[in-house]
């Protein structure tokens, strides 16, 4: 039985239809990648999965029950990190731990916080405030915060988009390692097809907006662990990549109005 699912979901903002007829079932333990253009509705999709917005039509279900509000069991890593600037990295993570595990002892809470700070490799910088951290480090804190709450599903909204290409590459490797180690169900939304192929078990392209729909599924049969540089040499990788990009580009071409709609 799927852990998180969208059933024919439609969402509009004002007169503009953003998503139309989206159906998706996410199985426990899998990593699902959703790729698409900027402005296609990827963030809206994550918001719907998280429960931050409600669909106009259709249903979002979690363990078969309708999602009416967000919660820590569907953890979110936001595109802009959303770290609280007046708290240190440690305090940002412990905020989540103390809230979700309020009945634990202080020692247990501290151990949990430190475990995830260690997992993302920020032990040496945990007393710094976000302003004193680089973009990559901030995103790692955001990841630690989401994971420390022990969510059942991790929803990632373009987590690496705000980073430069080199940092992005390094963090993709870290993400691959952490995802594999934690075994969590992950929905990753990204505009980088390579990133999706590196991290996901299956990829669903989101057509160009408005009224975006999910395109055909692309299964990624490349065995793990996946090494970013070695990936480029695999024919399967190139095959997947061209297939997904072809679909995305053709979905844009067949929508002349999309050129006017996207920013």
């Amino acid at each position, binding site marked *: 039985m799927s852990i998180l699912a969208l059933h024919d979901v439609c969402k509009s903002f004002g007169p503009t239809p953003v998503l139309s007829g989206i159906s998706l079932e996410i199985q426990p333990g899998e990593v699902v990648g959703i790729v698409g253009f900027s402005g296609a509705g990827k963030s809206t999709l994550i918001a719907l999965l*998280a429960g*931050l917005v409600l669909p106009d039509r259709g249903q979002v279900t979690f363990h078969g029950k309708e999602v009416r*509000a*967000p*919660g*820590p069991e*569907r*953890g*979110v890593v*936001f595109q*802009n990190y*959303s770290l*609280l600037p*007046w708290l240190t990295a440690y305090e940002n993570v412990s*905020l*989540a731990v103390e*809230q*979700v595990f309020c009945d634990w002892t202080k020692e247990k809470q501290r151990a949990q916080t430190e475990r995830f700070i260690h997992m993302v490799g920020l032990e040496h910088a945990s007393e710094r405030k976000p302003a004193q951290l680089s973009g990559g480090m901030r995103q790692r804190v955001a990841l630690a915060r989401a994971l420390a*709450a022990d969510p059942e599903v991790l929803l990632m909204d373009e987590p690496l988009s705000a980073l430069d290409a080199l940092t992005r590459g390094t963090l993709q490797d870290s993400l691959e390692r952490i995802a594999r180690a934690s075994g969590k169900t992950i929905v990753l939304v990204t505009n980088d097809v390579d990133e999706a192929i590196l991290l996901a078990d299956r990829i669903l392209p989101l057509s160009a907006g408005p009224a975006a729909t999910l395109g055909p599924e692309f299964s990624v049969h490349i065995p793990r662990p996946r090494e970013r540089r070695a990936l480029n040499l695999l024919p399967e990788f190139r095959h997947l990549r061209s297939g997904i990009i072809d679909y995305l580009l053709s979905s844009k071409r067949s929508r002349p109005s999309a050129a006017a709609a996207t920013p």
Partner: protein
Amino acid sequence: MQNEVVKAPPVRATDLSGSARSRVPSPLERTLGNAALPLIGVGAVLLLWAAASATFLDSLPSPHKTWDVSRLYILEPFEKRGELDQGILRFTWYSLQRVTKGYVIAILIGAPLGLLLGMSKLFRGSFDPIIQILRPVSPLAWLPLGLVIFHKPEPAGIFTIAMCSMWPTVLNTALGVRAVPQDYLNVARVLKLSRAKTLFKIMLPAALPYMFTGFRLSLGIAWLVIVAAEMLTGAPGVGGFLWQEYNALIYEHIILCILTIGIVGFVLDRLMGLVEKRLRAA
């Protein structure tokens, strides 16, 4: 050709250090430099004042006369020779005490009011028009109402200070709350933080810079109002002394009071700025 080594011209030590003007200034030089322009400005105003009082504004006391008549009050600032005849800093102290009382009340009422305005659309819709109408009311209008309610000049003055100075705090706090990024609120929602925790852990820290702007503006207004309030009620303080000296025809003291009011207001604002910096860094 390939064996020729092209030599660059030798770099002289003076090329690197440059002229004397680009040398780093010493702390003394920097202090003098910073003070130089303001001193020039003050000097120019003093000259203008002296010239004006000597010529077309002959009813205005000259700087020299002002100093002569005020000397006692400045050099013995804490003396008390009589209820209405005290050193200038003693008067200032009375005024500051009143300001503090009124200001604290203004903040204690204004900040929560601002929070409510920022957080609740319903509250905002209901009370924003009333606040916009009350905001432009001058202290001179509130004071008689204060006297009617409290019968005594002291509480009436404090009431007036509170009513006039709370608005920047109210409005800036409301603005700060509404300016909290939706991202932070989404973090609170995903973690299922209670409304109280969202307020204290996320909204208040995020709105604090705006609130501080409000606090600073409110303090400025409070100090402004106390002078008017004292003038109207005759209570001992800088404003009271000013009005009393006007009635006693000792006009030099009016100028003394004006200068004192200005300097104290400036110092208060600077102190607030320091407090703000300390809290931001924390």
